[in-house]
């Protein structure tokens, strides 16, 4: 099973379940207020997921006293549904609008994570969001063991929110 390492737990005074709970609540709040969607979560995910098929991934990096990546991985159909709800118009292709919407969701979730890790906001920087999409791709980073991945569902469609963290000196 995946987990955040003990160094993160010690530094943040948060156990993995606490951090996961924070990400779950943040994701539900973002989707409730900005996407107008109610989500169900099914934490924990038993096995890491690094390969994606016909999907869109939005990511934002954290750099400073902690480094890491907050990511959201959605099937294309769900990414288009998210974007349609956010823009209030029908979206039927993965393009600029979908990329922007997924990037902004990652950005908002990254802001929540930064808030619990940062002392005042100046010791951690959030990157500009990055979005990738494709038929088949894999996402790999520092270590597959230092992560929390949370599955969410809405109307039988599933997507993942992942958080990888490392404590810097």
């Amino acid at each position, binding site marked *: 099973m995946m987990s955040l390492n003990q160094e993160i737990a010690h530094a943040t005074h948060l156990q993995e379940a606490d951090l996961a709970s924070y990400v779950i609540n943040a994701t539900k*709040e*973002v989707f409730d*207020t*900005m996407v107008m969607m109610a989500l169900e979560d099914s934490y924990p995910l038993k096995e890491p997921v690094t390969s994606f098929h016909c999907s869109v991934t939005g990511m934002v990096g954290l750099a400073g006293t902690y480094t890491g990546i907050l990511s959201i991985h959605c099937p294309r159909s769900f990414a288009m549904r998210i*974007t349609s709800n*956010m*823009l*209030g118009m029908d979206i039927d292709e993965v393009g*600029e*609008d979908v990329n*922007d*919407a997924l*990037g*902004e969701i990652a*950005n*908002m979730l*990254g*802001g*929540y994570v*930064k*808030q619990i890790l*940062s*002392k*005042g*906001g*100046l010791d951690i920087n*959030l990157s*500009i969001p990055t979005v990738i999409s494709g038929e088949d791709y894999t996402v790999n980073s520092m270590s597959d063991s230092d992560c929390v991945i949370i599955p969410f569902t809405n109307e039988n469609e599933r997507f993942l929110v992942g958080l990888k963290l490392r404590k810097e000196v």
Partner: protein
Amino acid sequence: MGNVLIVDDSSTMRKIISRSLRQAGLQVDDIYEAGDGIEALSAMEGKSIDLILSDINMPNMDGLEFIKCVRAKGVSTPIVMITTEGGEDILKEAISSGASDSIKKPFTPDQLNEKLGGLL
């Protein structure tokens, strides 16, 4: 009534803010948009802007630098930050640079009304 300039690198967020202003029942005339601080400075030229809503974390020129540029020009238009940044120090820096207030993303139309009602 007033003209509003929305500065955010996300076009989706600019549309959400624009829609939410009207849903909140705020008295808005024209809404202008810019994707970063540099675009915003250009967008302000020759226009009467009554309220600026700006993100902080943007490429090219971020929200903090943008506020400093606006105030350096002697422009006193209220600037409210709408941002994912919730840290006390970064918001203090925004206020000391000349921002009037801040709103945390995600937000509801009611929260916009509460924060912006007195400015429009």
